[in-house]
């Protein structure tokens, strides 16, 4: 029996990810405590508010356990989840809003970089470098972050108008948008295949 896929269920749209993974026939379980990481095969850090997630991760004592988990197992972060995975924030000083990325995925991210909610949008993205399929994916960007720089260890695997919107480092995948909000399960499938 393989282990279920974990959903970091501190705050955010983890229920939408649960649905996406269930559509692909995968069992899931919620992770709120460090010990629960031992019971999952992979982990999704959902969209939500990165300020809130930072505080809840710290209070739950999850920061180091998450780093250790990501060195061994696949992790997907969408939107705020990508912010949590990133190594550095652009455009704000550490401590401005108290957001502390975990430094798991080697990239620099700028939060709310497109503007406020009225600037949220839906657009096609190119994920050929992720799964070899050149058909565009419809992507929902909500108060989305931007990837400003990608380190040597990571590679850009999804682009929007030539700009990076998805980064991969080994089996860790970070997306600035929300594949869980549409019915197309292609990117969740690609993530699950990163685990081999």
């Amino acid at each position, binding site marked *: 029996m393989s282990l279920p896929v974990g959903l970091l269920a501190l705050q955010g749209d983890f229920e*939408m990810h649960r649905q996406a993974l269930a559509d692909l026939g995968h069992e899931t379980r919620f992770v709120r405590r460090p010990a629960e990481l031992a019971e999952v095969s992979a982990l999704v850090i959902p*969209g*939500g*508010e990165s300020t*809130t997630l930072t505080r*809840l991760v710290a209070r739950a004592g999850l920061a180091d356990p998450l780093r250790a988990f990501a060195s061994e197992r696949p992790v997907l972060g969408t939107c705020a989840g990508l912010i949590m995975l990133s190594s550095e924030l652009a455009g704000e000083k550490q401590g401005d809003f108290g957001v502390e990325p975990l430094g798991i995925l080697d990239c620099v991210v700028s939060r709310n970089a497109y503007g406020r909610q009225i600037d949220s949008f839906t657009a096609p993205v190119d994920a050929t470098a992720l799964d070899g399929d050149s058909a565009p994916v419809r992507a929902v960007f909500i108060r989305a972050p931007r990837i400003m720089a990608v380190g040597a260890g990571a590679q850009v695997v999804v682009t929007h108008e030539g700009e990076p919107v998805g980064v991969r480092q080994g089996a860790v995948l970070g997306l600035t948008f929300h594949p869980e909000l549409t019915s197309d399960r292609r990117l969740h499938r690609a993530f699950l295949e990163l685990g081999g």
Partner: protein
Amino acid sequence: MENPWNNEAVGELYRQKVGLAEMLKGGVIMDVTNAQQAKIAEEAGAVAVMALERIPSDIRKTGGIARMSQPGMIKEIQAMVSIPVMAKVRIGHFAEAQILEALGVDFIDESEVLTPADNENHVYKHDFKVPFVCGCRNLGEALRRIGEGAAMMRTKGEAGSGDVVEAVTHMRAVTEGIRRLQMMRTDELMAEAKRLGAPYHVVVETAELGKLPVPNFAAGGIATPADASLMMQLGAETVFVGSGIFASEDPAPRAKAIVDAVTFHDDPAKLMEVSMKLGEAMKGRAVNEMDESEKMAGRGW
């Protein structure tokens, strides 16, 4: 006018609006009246703040017409925090909503806490790029607001009372209404739509989903971590706390405790831990001792 439910562009926009509501799940949205309070809320882990001039318990005390907040004050709050900033408009006051949209607020609450501007109609929310949240007391009211384009629902409860009883009543009423729909045969749904006074297509969608088509949050009278946990266990997906934080003795630790109580709403040991050393909760007023004319939940059509 084009039916929004058949229009792909409107459908895509609507999904973005509901998407933001999805991102707020499992969090706490806090009422704040100035930038300093907004900072305290963000520090405590709030997922969003609701900017308003007077918290509901003060609206009750001081009386007068309660209107949309001053744009200048909302701008100060937007500059202070990075989390979404919401603000309220009077029921039916689409011009106030246009101003808030121009300000770039992230969510508009068409709220019974303010003095209604229209005795029959609510704002047609599909006209806006900014998403709306509306209050409800029962399923029919929730589905009417969703029909108008609301991207998030919340119970009305009784704002500014510090008494959770009405939020419980309204949450149970919505849940019970959905359970009824799920037991019905397809040929009974039109009569039920008529009885609820709700749009048929939204009734059918709700019956199929077994839940509201948009996130369902709790509001109105929540004052303690236990209140927040109660509402989450009754099916709320997030909690609004209005007067409960900044009308309490020591707001910052209480705000943090309520955030933790929502995340760990089903863990009594954790709830006990976060409920320690919080100072006095807001004094409040029992809803059952209020005159009908004092209650806000009856506003909305």
